């Protein structure tokens, strides 16, 4: 007689710890918390911009606190991880067919990296 039940209990809270690829999936998922929070930072910045130079200066002071630096650093790391994982699935998400053949996946991924570099450079030049 088999003692192992056919359906095994899977933990609802720690299921992803069992396999590296589940951990990578969750690491990617968690980046959305930082992106959500960062979007609100942008909204607060916009609000201070609407309220005049003094309000904006207050926003800048808050940004320059140690927590502000730490938060921005965490967002940067999370956002880069999100970008890399987003671009790496683009061949599956939007395969491009040319005649009979599909365009090779690494070409699509590299095109995204190239465009990412250009966009980042343009925003840096505009913003700095």
């Amino acid at each position, binding site marked *: 007689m088999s003692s192992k039940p056919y359906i095994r209990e899977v933990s609802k809270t720690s299921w992803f710890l069992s396999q590296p690829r589940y951990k990578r999936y969750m690491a990617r998922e968690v980046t959305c918390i930082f992106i*959500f929070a960062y979007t609100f930072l942008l909204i607060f910045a916009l609000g201070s*911009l609407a309220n005049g130079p003094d309000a904006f200066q207050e926003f800048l002071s808050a940004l320059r606190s140690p927590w502000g630096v730490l938060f921005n650093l965490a967002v940067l790391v999370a956002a880069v991880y999100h970008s890399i994982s*987003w671009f790496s699935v683009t061949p599956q998400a939007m395969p491009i067919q040319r005649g009979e053949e599909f365009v090779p996946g690494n070409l699509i991924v590299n095109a995204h990296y190239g465009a990412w570099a250009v966009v980042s450079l343009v925003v840096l030049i505009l913003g700095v």
Partner: protein
Amino acid sequence: MAKSNKPIFWGLFAAGGTVTAFLTPVLALITLFAAMRFSPDLLTYDYLHAFANHWLGKLVIFGVILVSLWHAAHRLRVTVHDFGIRADTVVAYLVYGLAGLGTLMTLVYLLRI
């Protein structure tokens, strides 16, 4: 096939993922530089106000914030479920409510600038 509003939301979700993938790292880099006081010319009131005062600047700001917000909200809903919290309706109201509030705040602020 049954009609579904899924493509619209799925399209917004994909647009948000692409926009955040391209823009959030460099934006976070700039705000990090500003937070670390790399240069006094970073994030000046006059420059940003002039950008947000132009109709094209307003459109860009609104578009970026809108898709980032709803993309992240949708993913947050799934992430909460993945961490074992089985209260989807409450979570959905909460995250989409926050996204809606953020959208409204963005609109009001942009109109006031």
